[in-house]
């Protein structure tokens, strides 16, 4: 596995510019975090299609909706805490709800950074651990959490071509590269990164790398783990999860989000209906984050048990009960 790092926001900004060149209907909106989200590059290249509305997120969401209603493909971005966190009503009522005929919701892509605990030093006020839960329960909304910069780049283009509302969450910090540039991503289809039959580790976002590390360690101890990147949380890949349950007998889920209502909950819902097997959910332990410098983020993760060591422990725990 590669140990390269990539910056999700940079990948997002670059992808937007490429999209902007190909399609003049792409418009990009920001709320005073456009340098941070790396969307300002699009603004320099296409100033007439770039709207920085200031620190006014509710307005950001509904302006994006209006543009989309008039035929534009709107990308609206800021930190996760300010979109699902602050504007759930506007997202629900001005983006997801309006539907006409086959067109379910308006064509707005909400792409955020600073999702999860890895925000670090800014502290608990900025560490969003609720966004997946919030967005997942809104009808017509699709939810993606890419694992690395390659996934961000590919998925940005993918959602631009797929009609409807999307929520895509990125992390603030640089993340380990998981994918080669030739990897393809299909919405609704998880990706098996490693095969195995003793247990499954299903992960999202930056925890995918942890899952791979854990699987490697477990392999050394003779436990063969399957690792699935469930970057597509909604629609979730039921087939891949059912198959994993059937073939490996247990699933450990990982996410940088509250274990309540998030990815782990989504997997539990699917598996308990289709093929119940033991599940362990790794994620924020229903408590808020706090400041941690970049060098300390691993400590913050440890506090919540979001580590490859804890994944290993949970895999072993499941196997001991099988």
């Amino acid at each position, binding site marked *: 596995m590669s140990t390269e790092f990539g910056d999700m926001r940079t990948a997002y900004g670059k992808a937007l510019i490429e999209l902007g060149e190909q399609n003049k209907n792409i418009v990009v909106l*920001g709320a*005073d*975090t*456009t*340098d*941070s989200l790396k969307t*300002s590059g699009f603004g320099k290249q296409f100033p007439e299609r770039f709207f*920085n*509305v*200031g*620190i*006014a*997120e*509710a*307005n950001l969401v509904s302006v994006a909706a209006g543009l989309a209603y008039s035929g534009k493909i709107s990308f609206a971005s800021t930190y996760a*805490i*300010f979109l699902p*966190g*602050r504007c759930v009503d506007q997202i629900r009522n001005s983006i997801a709800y309006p539907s006409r005929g086959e067109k379910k919701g308006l064509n707005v892509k909400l792409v955020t950074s600073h999702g999860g605990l890895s925000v670090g*030093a*800014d*502290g*608990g*006020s*900025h560490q969003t651990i609720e966004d997946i839960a919030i967005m997942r329960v809104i009808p017509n909304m699709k939810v993606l959490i890419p694992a690395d910069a390659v996934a961000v780049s590919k998925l940005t283009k993918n959602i631009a071509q797929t009609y409807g509302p999307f929520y895509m969450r990125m992390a603030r910090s640089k993340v380990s590269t998981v994918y080669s540039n030739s990897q393809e991503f299909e919405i609704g289809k998880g990706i098996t990164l490693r095969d195995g039959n003793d247990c499954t580790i299903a992960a999202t976002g930056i925890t995918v790398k942890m899952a791979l590390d854990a699987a490697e360690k477990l392999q050394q101890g003779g436990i063969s783990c399957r690792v699935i990147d469930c970057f597509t949380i909604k629609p979730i890949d039921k087939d891949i999860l059912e198959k994993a349950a059937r073939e490996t007998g247990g699933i450990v889920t990982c996410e940088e989000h509250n274990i309540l209502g998030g990815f782990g909950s989504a997997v539990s819902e699917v598996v308990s209906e289709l093929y119940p097997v033991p599940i362990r959910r790794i994620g924020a332990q229903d408590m808020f984050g*706090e*400041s*941690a*410098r970049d060098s*300390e983020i691993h*400590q*913050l993760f440890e506090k919540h048990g979001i580590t490859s060591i804890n994944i290993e422990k949970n895999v072993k725990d499941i196997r001991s009960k099988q």
Partner: protein
Amino acid sequence: MINPNNLRKHVLRMVFEKKSGHIGGSFSLAELISYLYSNFDLVSNEKNSPKLILSKGHSVPILYAVLYELKKITDHELSLFREINSPLQGHPDKHKLKFLHATTGSLGQGLSIAIGHALGQKIQNSKNPIFCILGDGEMQEGQVWEGFMLAPKFKLNNLITFIDYNGAQSDGLVSDLLDLEPLKQKITSFNWNVLSISGHNLEEIENSVNANINNQYEKPTCIILNTKKGHGVSFMESPEWHAKVPNEEEYKKAIEELSC
């Protein structure tokens, strides 16, 4: 009277040591914070004591600086700024540090919180003031205007709201991003008592606060502080110092300037 430049030095130390934090918006508040903490008991945190709500939470280093200057937090605690398990969080957290009166960081919420406090004081028949500090960029949040609309309804003349009008926000100049002008007219049209003063002149700050606390018109007061982001250190007076961290040379030069 607390020396504002001492506060600036403490801010610099924190940000320099931890390589993160917001200098620009902390510096623009140094005089105001010096004045307020020199003249009001903002550390005792009793039910009816005066309160300060720092709505622009990212400027919290200036609060840590004044608490350090007043010896409410130790040298060791100051060194924990932005660290894990620290009382000195990246944004103010009143549960982790008892001298703070509000947990903020998500912009636009502080005025509403301050209104709650001001109503509370009124209910207790306390004359103690509630201070709220808003950023200028933050004025773009609709919730701020919900607060501006509400406070006059309750005749909150015990509420003094400062706007740190330093003209710069994350992405650039406020006037380019979403201009607030004519700011004074805007707030006047929301039925507030409005003043516009220099935010770096202690005398003007003192006079305007004294003249308007518990005023007879029974109106909340808004004091627009015309400030400079990064004020106090010549080369930091520019929008780029919103969240920039100084290198060693810059740090030394800045401390030197502040010691003159």
